[in-house]
Structure formats: structure tokens, C-alpha cells
């Protein structure tokens, strides 16, 4: 290993020697995600921690049938309907904050700066589902669900609350936010060159110009904000993989789930290592190495969402009652999660490209197919397989690999 480390600078020189303009400083990643200047940490991502906290409370509140539409919308917007400050959260720090989930949904620099139309549509999608949770599902909470009828359905021994099409909107919103908030902000915003290199940030970073009153350069901070959408609630900033999966119900949790599938084992470490090396590259002012890590992160973080989408569609398929029984609850739960991850596909980002793996139109097509007619009550295994195949075809895994 040590030998390899010695080779690294040589490697960098070889790799970049023909590109005279580029910085050739060698980059050595530290053992952990731990960066200091003058003995103090330079890492900060409190805004991400706040938004994950707000999302956590929103999803929890969407499971309580007594909650009102106003409360849920206030949690999403952190504002009242008239635009004034709201205090919908149980955690006081969240109420004190003026940030919101909504302001960062479908709000990345790369995808939405000149596409506020689509951004607004996506925000509306999520608000529509939040409202439907109250209007369709909570209002039918005390009746049994059936084909075309919202209500309760048993998933094993517990009650799930579904729409007339079998959709659990809390699951849909939860998993849609993994894409529309966390993934989009990471791969299309904070890891985007439009953000990392904006204004005079390269020059400032080269000259170690710190933000006023802060211990970090703007570029360092942007990188950390991407990191914060994955590890913002982790017990250890430096070594977040120690508690991976237990720290939130969004990206952190589902990275752990994908990691636990043997076909993907190592992906969490790859993502962590890329974050670490990229951050070290910023400190070393080596933007080639940084950009290589961006590409790795865009690919791997996107792969997590895609693998999870396929996983839940396949689990849903496997849980559809085989003998015409009515025990659809487990399948509906899986398919609701799958629907949210499918929605999230529109934010997956091809590495070294301005494009996403799927357009919103393609994703909307999948969603329309999944919920057409009586929705999950009559979705066929063939449909679930076909969408699974279309997803997997764009990534470096098969449906079978993601399915278990």
C-alpha cells in the first residue's frame, strides 16, 4: 500500500503532464474525512443536517392519520400558506431555521437554473402527494382498502394506509425526496462545476481565501455541502460509514441497503473514498483529481437510486399474491417505495456529461404506466419486469443483481 502511495504523485504527473495549464499538485487522501486549518476543522454542512431533519419529521408526520394538510404543507415549506414563518416541527432548531425542504427540491444549478418550469412541476408533484395523503388516504383511514377504494390494508401484521390505486403517499414522498432533494443537490448542484468553480472560487481556493468569518474556502464548503446530504446526520463526520444506514431515512439509509446486497458491496466505501479524495484534492488545489472524484460520485450515487428502484419493483412483483388472494399490502408497500425511487431517476446524473440518465418525460412515462387503471391493484409482473429492465440497461448492473 505504501508503495502505491509513493507512486501516486508519479501517476499524477504522468496522467496530467501533457496538460500544461492544469495544476499538478499531488493529492494524498487522509485516512478519514477530516480537514483542518490552523488546528480547527474546515468542514461545515449545517444546512444539510437541517433539511434532513425537516424531511425526517415530515415523513413521520405523514404516517399519523390525525395530522392536517396545513401542518404537512407547513413542514414541507417551513412557511404558512400566506408565506409567513411557520413553526411546524417538534425540534426547536428546525423551527428557528428559515430554510425549507421545498426550496431545495429540484433546485440544482445544472438541471433547473434555466428550467424553473420543470422545477415548479416537481415541487407541485410532491405537494400534490402530500395533500392527497390527507384528502384521499387520511379521510379514508377507517375503512378497508379495495380495488379503487382508499383505506387500510394489512401488510403482514400491520396496517398500511393506501390510496384508491394502492399508493402509500408517505413512502412515495420519502423516496422521491431521496432523488429530488438529496441526489439532485449532490450530483447536480454541489458537485457540479457550475457551483464548485463559480465566480472567483478557483482563484480564491488557489490563494486560500476564506469566506468571511469562516475557516473554509467557498469551494471546500460546497464540497462539504454535498457530503452533508449523505452524512449530515451521521454520528461521526470523519467516519460516517461506522453508522451507515442508521442516520437518516433518506440517502444514508438506502446506501446502506444497497451496500448490504452482495452484488454492490464496496459501493459505500467507494463513495466515501471519492468524497475524501476529492476534498483532499481541493485542499491540494488539484482540480483534475477533484473532477475525477466528481465523476465517480455522480455515477455511484446515481447507481444507488437506480438499484433501489429496481429492487422495490422486483420485490413488489414477488409479493403480488400468486393465487388471486387479496393480500396485496406487502406488494403495495414495496411498489410505493419503488414508485418514489423511480421518480428519483430523473435526477440521476451521467458522469462526464451534462445529461441525466433519464429525462422527466421518461420517468413520467414509467409512473403513468405503473399507476394507470386501478394502479397497483392490476399492475402486471410483465410491466414491473419491463421497467426494471429499462432501468438496469442504463447502469452497470442487472435486474437480478439489484433484485435481492
Amino acid at each position, binding site marked *: 500500500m505504501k508503495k502505491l502511495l509513493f507512486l501516486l504523485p508519479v501517476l499524477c504527473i504522468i496522467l496530467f503532464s501533457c496538460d500544461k495549464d492544469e495544476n499538478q499538485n499531488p493529492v494524498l487522501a487522509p485516512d478519514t474525512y477530516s480537514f483542518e486549518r490552523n488546528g480547527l476543522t474546515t468542514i461545515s454542512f449545517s444546512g444539510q443536517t437541517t433539511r434532513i431533519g425537516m424531511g425526517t419529521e415530515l415523513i413521520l408526520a405523514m404516517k399519523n392519520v390525525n395530522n392536517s394538510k396545513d401542518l404537512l404543507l407547513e413542514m414541507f415549506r417551513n412557511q404558512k400558506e400566506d408565506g409567513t414563518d411557520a413553526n411546524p416541527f417538534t425540534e426547536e432548531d428546525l423551527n428557528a431555521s428559515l430554510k425549507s425542504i421545498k426550496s431545495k427540491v429540484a433546485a440544482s444549478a445544472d438541471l433547473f437554473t434555466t428550467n424553473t418550469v420543470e422545477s415548479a412541476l416537481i415541487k407541485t408533484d410532491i405537494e400534490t402527494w402530500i395533500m392527497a395523503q390527507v384528502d384521499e388516504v387520511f379521510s379514508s*383511514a*377507517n*375503512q*378497508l382498502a379495495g380495488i379503487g377504494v382508499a383505506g*387500510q*390494508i*394489512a401488510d*403482514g*401484521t*400491520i*396496517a*398500511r394506509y393506501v390510496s384508491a390505486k394502492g399508493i402509500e403517499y408517505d413512502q412515495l414522498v420519502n423516496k422521491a425526496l431521496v432523488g429530488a432533494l438529496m441526489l439532485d443537490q449532490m450530483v447536480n448542484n454541489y458537485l457540479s462545476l457550475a457551483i464548485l468553480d463559480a465566480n472567483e472560487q478557483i482563484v480564491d481556493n488557489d490563494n486560500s481565501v476564506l469566506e468571511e468569518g469562516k475557516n473554509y474556502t467557498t469551494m471546500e464548503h460546497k464540497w462539504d455541502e454535498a457530503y452533508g446530504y449523505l452524512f449530515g446526520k451521521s454520528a461521526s463526520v470523519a467516519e460516517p460509514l461506522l453508522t451507515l*444506514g442508521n442516520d437518516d*431515512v433518506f440517502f444514508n*439509509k438506502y446506501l446502506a*441497503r444497497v451496500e*448490504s446486497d452482495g452484488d454492490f458491496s464496496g459501493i459505500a466505501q467507494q463513495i466515501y473514498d471519492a468524497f475524501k479524495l476529492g476534498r483532499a484534492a481541493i485542499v491540494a488545489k488539484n482540480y483534475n483529481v477533484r473532477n475525477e472524484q466528481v465523476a465517480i460520485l455522480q455515477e455511484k450515487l446515481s447507481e444507488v437510486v437506480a438499484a433501489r428502484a429496481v429492487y422495490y419493483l422486483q*420485490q413488489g412483483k*414477488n*409479493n403480488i399474491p*400468486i*393465487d388471486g*388472494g*387479496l*393480500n396485496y*399490502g*406487502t406488494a403495495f408497500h414495496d411498489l410505493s417505495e419503488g414508485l418514489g425511487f423511480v421518480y428519483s431517476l430523473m435526477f440521476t446524473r451521467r458522469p462526464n456529461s451534462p445529461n441525466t440518465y433519464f429525462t422527466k418525460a421518461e420517468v413520467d412515462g414509467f409512473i403513468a404506466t405503473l399507476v394507470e387503471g386501478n394502479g397497483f391493484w392490476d399492475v402486471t409482473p410483465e410491466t414491473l419486469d419491463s421497467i426494471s429492465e429499462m432501468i438496469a440497461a442504463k447502469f452497470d448492473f442487472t435486474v437480478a443483481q439489484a433484485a435481492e
Partner: protein
Amino acid sequence: MTMINYFRFLLFCSFGVLLSACNDNSNNSSIDTFDRELMLTHWADNIIIPRYETYVSSLEDLESKTEEFITNASVDNFDVLRSSWLSSYTAWQAVSMFEIGKAEENGLRNYTNIYPTDTNKINQNIAEHDYNLTLPSNFDAQGFPALDYLLYGLSEDKSEAAYLLTQSDRNLYLSLLVTRLKLLAEAVVDDWKSGYREEFIANKGSSATASVDKIVNDFLYYYERFLRAGKVGIPAGVFSGSSLSHTVEAPFCGVYSKDFLLASLTAVQDFFNGKSHLSNGTGESLNAYLDYLNTKIEGADLAVLINSQFDSARNKINSLNQNLKKQVETDNVKMLEAYDELQKVVILFKVDMMQALNIKVDFIDADGD
């Protein structure tokens, strides 16, 4: 989570071992001509239906004892009622695994024995008179666990408990729950006797929807989720990391939790061995099927291994406190030890037996959210 992953890993390893073992096997065994129809007939006529009949008659007794108590709430009648509850709850342990046919269609287990029971919900239902017991959200406000609360949870003093049960319409709820249990059980046994038995036996093939495949999966699912996890693993904190003593079965009366576990284990083992319900005779069974296939694991008969592992688990359980809640609270290590022995049966079942019988496991581990 780590624990579950660990077991997955174990399963995975055993699977690898088995694959090679099985290949050896397939060379010297011919086509499977085991008489599945005979086995299904024995199961239906000598095990499943008789067990259900015992269960239904125990509920008829519970219903009449409930009526007697409501008419005359004496402490004597209360004692008789409690003891009838104990008999029917014990009889339930022998049928819970057969969640097939009408039982599956009606979700019998969900309406009969979901615990821990939600005492707030029960009190709310009693107070409001406006509730729908068919809703999944009321699974944990009915059945034997709710009766456990009504019969044992209102007061530690017996005469006061009997008195409180007559107050505030609690007796109406009691009566409603008991009658509901009886009607649900009767529907199942009636279905078996009016055509489902024949359908069950005729469906003797080997496919995901065939009777043998389905009931063996039900049996395995029951063992894994409701016996191993529900009665032992969850209270011992295997899945949560810290013990949860209030999640034992029948915590309000307390002292029968171990007996219910043992009754369940015996019912499972007897089914495996094809022991008739009303006699000591045995018939075609999973045990016999494995013998027929000459299934061996490293030279030992799989059926023998399974029975001896059942016995190891029973020995561990016998050493536990009658009250599993107390056991968890005083010495949870013993609970964990019992769990470990029960878990070893899961591995023999789920990997070795299913592979030998060429039955695909039709349920998957939920991912927990």
C-alpha cells in the same frame, strides 16, 4: 440488522455446503415418487381438521363461560373464565401455523394473536362504541392478547379485576371479542369440511401454488416469524439490540408465556413428524418425506438432525422462567440461548429441508420499514 445480516451470511454459507451435498444426492436418487396425496390426506384428516375442531370447541366453551360470567360476575366464574381462556389460547398454538385456505383469506392470525396488544386502543374502543374490528389498525386491539389484558390487566387483585371487567361496558367488548374469535375459527373449520379438504388434497402437485409447497411455506413462515421471532427473539431484543420484555406473549397474566411457547414448539414438531392429533399414531410427514429422499447432511439424516435440534431448543426453553417477561428482565442471556437453538432449526428447515424437497421459499425478509 447486523444480526440479520449475520444469519443471512450463515444461510448463504450453508447453502453453498448444501449445493455440493445435493449434487451427490441426485446421482443416486431417482425421480421423486413420494405419495404427496397420502401425506396431504393425513395432514388434513388427522392433524389440521382435528386440531381446528379442538380449537373451535375450546372457543365454544370460552363463549359460554363468558356468558356465565357476564350473568354472574363472581370470582368463581371469573376463575373459570380465565381457565377457559387458557385452554383456547393453548389450542390456538396448534393451529396458528396453518394459515391456508379460509384462514389465509380471512387473515385469521392477524385477528387472533397480534401482540403486544394496544391497551389505549382497547380502552378507546370500549369508550367510543364506534370501531371496526375488521380494520388492520385494530389487529392489536382484539384476539387473545386483548383478552389477556381484560382478564389479567385491569387489576392485580382478582376480585377487583372481576369487578372492573363488568364496568364501563368492558364486558360487552369482552363478549364481542370472544364471539368474534369463535366465528373466525368456525368459518375456517367449516370451509375445510365443505370442500376445501378435497381441494387441498387434490392440489397434490409440485409448484408454487401446490398444497405441499404452500403449507410447508406457511409452516416455515410461522416457525420463523411467530414462534422463533415473536415468542422469543423480539422480547429478547435480537432484532432491536435491546430487550423488549413487554413484547412477550400474554404479558398480563405472565405465567403462561413459556407454556404457550412450548405448546407451539410441540405442535410444530408433531406436524413435522406427522403425529396425529387425537392419537399417538403417525402418518406420512415431512420427516417421512426426507427419509424417503434419504436426505443426509454430512452423513447424518436430516430428519434426525431436525428432531434433535427441536429437542435442544426445548431443553433450553424448559430451563426458562415460566414468565418469559421475568426471564428477559432478570437473565436475558438464557432467552438468547433459547433463540439460538430455535434459529438452528430455521437453518435446517429453510436451507436443507426446502432444498431437499425442492420447494421454493415464497416469502422474503422484509426490509423493516
